[in-house]
């Protein structure tokens, strides 16, 4: 049980970030495992909500997509999509939204639309899906992505999902009362946002990594917390739950 992968530590960090949370909008893969770990540890009342309209799923297998039939059978509720977006998300019923991204800037704005020019893209990415609305309507968001200079960019090619917007962070999206990005969880370090300037801030390193290594993966001069800490490694219990129950196939090992 000693030793763990960076992915496993990501899962653990994301789970810990959900302490006491009661509703989370989540996709499949690593963030999904993190939510299930949180339910078994720090957030027993956590209700997983999928963009497909499913609440309280009890999948019999690891779901391949947010529309997998295994998340329907045995769920508490399946809502039509208008209800999901109107009543749950815009209605302010989702505490935390988990988001991935292709690009993120220093204010937590996200791009999942194109690399290059919109009209003539080098790479056409999937687009918003519900990400734009999750970013706007979840009471706060947690961004989960691997740390790399290609992802942590100086300037987004396209702003798909608003984070804290501009430098002064003074422009909240119209009529929406929400906190925006709270944390960024990567495979090398954790980031938070400065409560004043809303700038991303290196908060904690994964064991064995230096601040210089982390800064080398970020395209802008990275702000570093006064009290930079080191992430607590996965506990025995956390690892056991992941390996025995949530990732028994070892995909993230």
């Amino acid at each position, binding site marked *: 049980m000693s030793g763990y992968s960076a992915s496993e530590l990501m899962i653990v960090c994301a789970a810990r970030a959900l302490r006491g949370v009661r509703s989370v909008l989540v996709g499949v893969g690593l963030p999904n495992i993190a939510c299930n770990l949180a339910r078994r540890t720090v957030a027993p009342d956590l209700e997983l909500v999928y963009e497909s309209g499913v609440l309280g799923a009890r999948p019999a297998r690891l779901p391949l997509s947010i529309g997998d039939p295994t998340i329907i059978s045995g769920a508490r509720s399946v809502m039509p999509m208008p*209800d999901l977006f109107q009543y749950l998300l815009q209605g302010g019923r989702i505490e935390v939204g988990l988001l991935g991204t292709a690009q993120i800037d220093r204010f937590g704005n996200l791009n999942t639309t194109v690399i290059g020019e919109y009209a003539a893209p080098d790479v056409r990415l999937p687009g918003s899906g519900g990400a734009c609305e999750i970013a706007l309507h979840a009471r706060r968001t947690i961004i989960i992505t691997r740390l790399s200079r290609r992802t942590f960019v100086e300037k987004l090619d396209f702003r798909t999902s608003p984070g804290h917007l501009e430098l002064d962070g003074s422009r909240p999206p119209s009529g929406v009362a929400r906190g925006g990005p709270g944390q960024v969880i990567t495979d090398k370090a954790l980031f938070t946002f400065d409560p004043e300037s809303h700038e991303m801030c290196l908060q904690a390193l994964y064991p064995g990594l230096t601040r210089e290594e982390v800064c080398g993966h970020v395209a802008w001069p990275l702000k570093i917390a006064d009290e930079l800490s080191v992430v607590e490694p996965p506990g025995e219990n956390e690892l056991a739950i992941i390996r025995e129950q949530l990732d028994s196939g070892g995909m993230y090992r």
Partner: protein
Amino acid sequence: MEDKLVDMRSAIAAYVQDGMTLAIEGFTAFICFAAAHEIIRQGRRGLTLARMTPDLVYDQMVAAGVAKKLIFSYLGNPGVGSLHCIRRAVEHSIPHELELEEYSHFGMVGRYIAGASQLPFYPLRSYSGTDLPRVNPAIRFIADPYEGTEIAVVPPLHPDVAILHAQRADRQGNTQAWGILGVQKEVAFASRKVIVVVEDVVDEEVIRADPNRTLIPGLVVDAVVHVPFGAHPSYVQGYYDRDNKMYQEWDDLSRDADRVQAWLQEWVYAVEDHQAYLDKLGASRLERLKPGSAPAHSIDYGVYR
């Protein structure tokens, strides 16, 4: 998830305070008289009562002096006639004045949708050529940004408390209903607190066996109250019929303010709770309201491993 099951007295005491805006909804069906009577018994005052069709439930609450205002779209005793207590308040300020905020059905539906959606307004093609906007300044008109045509809007409605009746829920408030669904879901999402009152409290496995039937997820429910026949004299699909005799008797007795007070004394104040009310009605009367059986065909969600 937490256990939200409480009794009616505690639920009303905890969530319904003087001066609040309350919605006891249900279109002909699912009208929670058990909650209304408990609110009367607990002596609440100054409530704003929202409901598309005030029905007997608000007629009784108005007569009991609970309400200062109605937000509504149709003032009638369905299939029978007038709501005499509300008319008496409106026409003669008995027992006191009653403020009215009036919409059409679609306007009320829109207010609940906007409330549930946290929208600042709900657009609907209605009210042009009518006198309603003249008497209700909350109804406004805006220009469609594409074609420039005018369209009506109504503001969101956010009841402080919604009380919604249904066939069944689990102890976490995941609620399933069938029959006339009306605006039950929208009211639940529009309201700050939600009390669900059910005929049956079921194991969560019953809910999970048919997730598409879940009308109100436990996520937005604050309290679950178990009151069989709690919607009497209205009805619950598959469980009991509307007690039309009581609706007709009310039409007669409610024409006389004194008889109404006597009725409230006998059927609300003098009974301890809804079970005592049912006991007083008698088992044979309730038995006669039970319908025959018309089961839905089973469906299968499949096990996907």
